[in-house]
């Protein structure tokens, strides 16, 4: 793509079998990319190709085919490392972001004791909250929460009162899956580190949406899922500094993760394989690099600009609906490509079902962020989220659909 040229979502759509071709009525208006993105043909083909041409278990056989499978798997590790500018020895392959965050949280139980503190934020997805609740319960550590300001941004003025000598871990998302908020991650990470804390970043909504460098985030550990970045399901990563990973306890034990096993004791393999017990999803690993290729061919700066433009457009169009309560910051530069809202006139369920009838797929519910919705004072919300294939007409269809739904339920 020529430098400076814009992302052309119409062209990108051609790569996505579920979205390609259809126009006008009957076209799928997919506005749930924050839940999972659609998959490009090259990813689908790569996964199938693995089973057709390279299927064998990894790190086991001495035959050529097993070598090819191992190469596909390890190739994914290297590709992800390159994508984030991280050390491949620090890339743990997991099932999804949730598993990666569980490893970060429960694996650091040995670093925590009674009276220690874990700092999270009130806008976390359950995946970056519940594991910390669990580890706090187990170790006697206490959870502290960074609150929101009135604009739906993290309230950094509260930070000095929350960070202290007992803060061992600060865990926060690089982008909120409900508010869309992009917090000043690097700054929070720096201040947490100065307080002596490890920094854990949930990048599930940032990876594939924002240019992301492991180093620049300031993270010690960073989690994300392949399926939210145009890649296959069943694959996620915990990316860390190898010396930080060394300090984590493996949660799962068994094959693949050991160095030597005796009848009554075992020693662990090197990091990162220590955290990869059992047969991994090699086919998914083989299929993810093409997704990253696609993102880099387009360029993450362009992806970012595209999502920002859509967000700006959606904020503008949705504001034209009277009474609609839009969540999160008003400035599109402070948000990733998603907009959640609450319509006091039509319940999110009814709205989602109605929109589905119009061919518009959006998400209704609490989006795995119950505490946040409680703070916002609403039981649930509706979320429209965008991807590289999203066009302005998708947003138009949403806004028109809401208008129709209001007439249907209020009329």
């Amino acid at each position, binding site marked *: 793509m020529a430098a400076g040229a814009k992302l052309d979502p119409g062209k990108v759509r051609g790569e996505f079998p579920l979205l390609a071709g259809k126009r006008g009525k009957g076209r799928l208006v997919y506005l749930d990319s924050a839940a999972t993105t659609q998959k490009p043909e090259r990813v689908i083909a790569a996964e199938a190709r693995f089973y057709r041409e390279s299927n064998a278990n990894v790190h086991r056989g001495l035959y050529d085919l097993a070598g090819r499978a191992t190469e596909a798997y390890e190739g994914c590790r290297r590709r992800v490392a390159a994508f984030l500018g991280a050390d491949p020895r620090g890339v743990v392959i997991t099932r999804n972001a949730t598993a990666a965050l569980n490893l970060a949280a429960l694996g650091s139980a040995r670093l925590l004791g009674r009276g220690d503190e874990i700092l999270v934020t009130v806008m976390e997805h359950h995946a970056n909250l519940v594991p910390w609740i669990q580890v706090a319960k187990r170790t006697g550590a206490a959870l502290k929460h960074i609150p929101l300001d009135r604009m739906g941004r993290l309230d950094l003025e509260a930070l000095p009162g929350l960070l202290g000598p007992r803060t061992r871990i600060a865990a926060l998302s690089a982008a909120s899956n409900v508010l869309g908020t992009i917090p000043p991650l690097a700054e929070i990470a720096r201040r947490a580190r100065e307080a002596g804390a490890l920094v854990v970043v949930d990048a599930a909504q940032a990876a594939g949406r924002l240019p992301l460098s492991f180093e620049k985030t300031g993270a010690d550990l960073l989690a994300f899922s392949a399926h939210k970045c145009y890649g296959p399901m069943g694959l996620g990563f915990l990316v860390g500094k190898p010396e930080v990973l060394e300090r984590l306890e493996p949660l799962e034990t068994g094959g693949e993760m050991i160095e030597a096993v005796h009848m009554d004791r075992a020693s662990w393999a090197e990091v990162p394989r220590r955290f990869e017990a059992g047969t991994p999803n090699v086919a998914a690993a083989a299929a993810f690099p093409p997704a990253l290729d696609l993102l880099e061919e387009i360029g993450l700066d362009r992806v970012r600009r595209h999502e920002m433009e859509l967000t700006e457009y959606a904020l503008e169009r949705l504001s034209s609906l009277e009474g609609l309560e839009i969540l999160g910051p008003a400035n599109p530069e402070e948000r990733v490509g998603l907009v959640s809202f609450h319509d006091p006139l039509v*319940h*999110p*369920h*009814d709205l989602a*079902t109605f929109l*589905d009838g119009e061919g518009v797929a959006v998400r209704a519910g609490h989006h795995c962020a119950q505490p946040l919705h409680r703070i916002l004072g609403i039981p649930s919300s509706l979320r429209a989220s965008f991807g590289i294939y999203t066009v302005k007409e998708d947003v138009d269809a949403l806004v028109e659909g809401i208008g129709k739904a209001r007439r249907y339920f209020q009329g």
Partner: protein
Amino acid sequence: MNLDDLYRDVVMDHYKNPRGREPLERVDIHAEGANPSCGDEVGLDLQVEEGRILKVGVRGRGCAVSTASGSILAEMVEGLTLEEAGRVARRMKGALKGEVRPGEIDMGDLEALTGVRKFPVRIKCALLPWVTLLEALLEKEKET
């Protein structure tokens, strides 16, 4: 898929004018129900005398389907004994889940809600008030 299968006139009527919304003078049995997948909550109050439900109070604002279902519940179980109400609730649960054919029982207005079975993700909405009623009755049984 036709939306009017779900939002039939009877359902929309119950949604727009839900019954059982006045607060009760006396609450003898109370239960809270929540749909963890969406965050909707419902509170059920029952005023009971000599084992018979005199009045039902429904609180909480859900979607059209759960609001209508709660309204129908209020209408249907008023005047029933606790045992009868339990029986009705179990049958309704079966019918909404599609385990019982609607024709086998007299469902009154709830018949209109069985359209929900064509919308599997919404069945929980219709079930919420009935499941909450069953919980309330179970609690009561444990007490006595």
